């Protein structure tokens, strides 16, 4: 296990370095200069040059990259050009909101997908199965921001069941305030999980050991929970890992609709303003998150299926 973890950490470091360099390269070739934004239209060429000097934007790329890596490993993620605050503080402030959103929407997705997939698998080819497979597809078709706005309008504004945005203070308020954004995400994600889980459950339900369990009188939920789920889960967990990774970038839209000051909206603002240190740092955090989720899914395999050996 130690060997496995150190190998994974080594991979992680390489991936992060690669992402950081790629982001820096892309920013370098993209038009847009924070100097003009900060200094205004009356900025003289001298002032602009001074600005570039101050932020090290004149140095060759490898030097800038080296400096970035050097500072990052000591925990210094740079200073925002726009707000002049340490980027690390800005990220720490917004990080919890995005994490809450990701975890909450995943839990809701699971709460929707597992029961529905189970019902569909147990009642395979019956009307319930068809309904469960067809209706959620509507969720996939609808853009999540539209779902979000509709839910906002109906449940938050019309019927005041939930707050119309913002994050709230304290865990209970978070649960309440983040319900609508999380369910908007879950509605789009659940259909894929339902299908994937149902498909592997159907396969497992046909296997011999399940037939054996059935002959012993095990039925319904007990059958699912103790025998089928663990065996059917692996492909769905893979899907889970991948979609969480995609979601990290995708929360931008939901954060905008529900006015949630998370990492997604931070990235959007930073890109619009060409706030280079913030863009680089947040990209790094996103990459680290994706890598982390992949690691978690791989470890989960080991937990769920004792036959899997992590090497």
């Amino acid at each position, binding site marked *: 296990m130690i060997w496995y973890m150190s190998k994974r950490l080594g991979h992680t470091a390489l991936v992060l370095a690669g992402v950081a360099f790629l982001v820096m390269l892309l920013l370098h070739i993209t038009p847009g200069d924070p100097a003009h934004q900060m200094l205004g239209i009356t*900025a003289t060429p001298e002032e602009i040059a001074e600005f570039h000097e101050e932020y090290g934007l004149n140095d060759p790329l490898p030097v800038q990259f080296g400096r970035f890596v050097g500072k990052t490993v000591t925990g210094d993620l740079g200073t925002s050009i726009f707000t002049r605050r340490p980027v690390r503080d800005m990220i720490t402030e917004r990080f919890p909101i995005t994490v809450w959103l990701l975890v909450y929407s995943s839990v809701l997705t699971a709460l929707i997908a597992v029961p529905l997939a189970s019902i569909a698998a147990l009642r395979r080819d019956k009307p319930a199965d068809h309904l469960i497979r067809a209706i959620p597809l509507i969720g996939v078709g609808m853009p999540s921001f539209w779902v979000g706005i509709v839910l*906002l309008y109906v449940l938050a504004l019309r019927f005041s069941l939930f707050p119309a945005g913002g994050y709230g203070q304290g865990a209970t308020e978070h649960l309440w305030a983040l319900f609508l954004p999380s369910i908007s995400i879950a509605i789009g994600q659940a259909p894929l999980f339902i299908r994937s889980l149902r498909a592997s459950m159907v396969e497992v339900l046909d296997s011999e050991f399940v037939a054996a369990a059935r002959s012993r009188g095990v039925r319904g939920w007990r059958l699912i929970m103790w025998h089928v789920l663990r065996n059917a889960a692996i492909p769905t967990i893979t899907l889970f890992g991948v979609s969480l990774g995609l979601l990290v970038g995708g929360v931008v839209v939901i954060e905008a609709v529900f006015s949630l000051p998370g990492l997604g*909206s931070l990235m959007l603002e930073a890109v619009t303003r060409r706030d280079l240190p913030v863009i680089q740092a947040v990209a790094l955090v996103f990459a680290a998150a994706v890598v982390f989720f992949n690691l978690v899914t791989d470890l989960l395999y080991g937990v769920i299926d004792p036959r899997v050996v992590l090497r």
Partner: protein
Amino acid sequence: MKSSLRLVAATVTAAALLMACGSGETPDANGDEPDPTSTETPGATPGGEITIAFGSDANGLDKSAVIGEESIWIQQQLYATLYAPTPDGRSLQPELADEHTLSDDGLEWTFTLREGLLFSDGTPLTAEDVKFSLEESRDQGGLLSFLYRAFAEIEAPNDRTLVIRTEEPFAPMLAILSERSAGVVPADYGGRDRDEFYENPVSSGPFAFESWSRGEEMVLVRNDNYFDPPLLDKVIFKVVTDDNARVLQLRDGQFDMMGSVPFSSLSTITESEDLELRDFPWTNVEMIILNQSVEAFSDPHVRLAMSLAIDREAIANQIFSGLAQPAHSFIAGSLVDEQPAEYSTFDLEAARDRLAQSAFPDGFSFTLNYPGTSQTVGSEMQAVKQQLAQIGIEMVLRPLEGGGAEEAWFSGEYEAVYASLSSDIPDADFMATAFTATAGLFSGYQSEEAAILGAQAASSMDEDERQRLYSEMLDVIMQDMPLLPIIEQSNLYAHQAGVTGFDVAIQGQLFLVDVSAR
């Protein structure tokens, strides 16, 4: 005897009642005479709080280093200035200053501060603090070094006197002293580090800082030490990024007021009985800048033809629902009264004639860069495109993302570009000097005559003469039409019907001192 006593009593009572209701103003909490600039609504009750929603959060509270509209509007509540714009934007009124004198040679300004000024923490506000605050801005660089270019020396000979010396007579002095960055903070930040101070600043303005939950809301409370304390106990600035959500939440009473009203949602507000839509004049001008190095644009006949072909009234009515006026130059009509309207009044026949006289009688094609993220700008440019097509000119629309469009503009790598500019000071000097300093807003246009007129206007102390000079300068420039002025937008706010006393200056400053939500 009894009846005459009754008569006296009645008379005295009547007189007392008359005196109480007579003036709409009562001495304020400090027992001083009411501020002649305060426009208290009779019957407005003190206390209470209001919540104002904007589309973005402030970026910080550093009055010299931080940019961004919301940051400016919020900071203006925290840091008072020597002078402030009057709500109608026509002139300036004293705020922290009591009065000023100007030396005969016009180079030395002496300001006397009001008596008994205090910061929100109770420490006295002296001329030393003002000196420190102005030097902070002057030494900042960027836009501010441009604004403060005339401030050669700043001195505080005593607690209530501030002296500023300039090298040339400088008419925009008071206007610049009303700008956000001229706000007053304690000298040496009260012993704190600059960044530390601006995390939790001490205020000299009508409101003091209480708390800030970044990205969500900032809470300001009444500053009782301000010489004209506001009615409200508290103002909360809330962030609601999505335009639709913001309008819906206002309609449902989630907050009292909102800024950045999207044009697409006007009907939601105007149809509601509980909401009021307010439009305030602004120094904003939207224009299309023409790169003089493009062959077609080097011909003034072409440029004039294009201007005459644009129906600005139609754009104002259809796209801005009448909440905009035609622009006739790059300086707003609220700053320069007489505008050279003849070169930018819709006349299709005249436009065709002009084009026929030019080197491109059969028209031509060019590309316009504009910010693709704004729906309103997109519609506006579509309208211009259709109008230009009527005289055979094809404008190819190229939506770009903010940074990209700006970069191309500043480096001159564009054919035509959309720009929206507002002056931060209630004075034409900013735009006039910026135009010359940036070679016609990066169009490549230069005019010695215009530059001289602008400089003369900056150093004349006679308001009427300055207006005349600016009008002349605009006439000189606009007869060459280096850029196409399109529209001047109004500054839109919407609030619940019960909110009173709210006003906005032409450079965007919010007047919250007299606001009441009761």
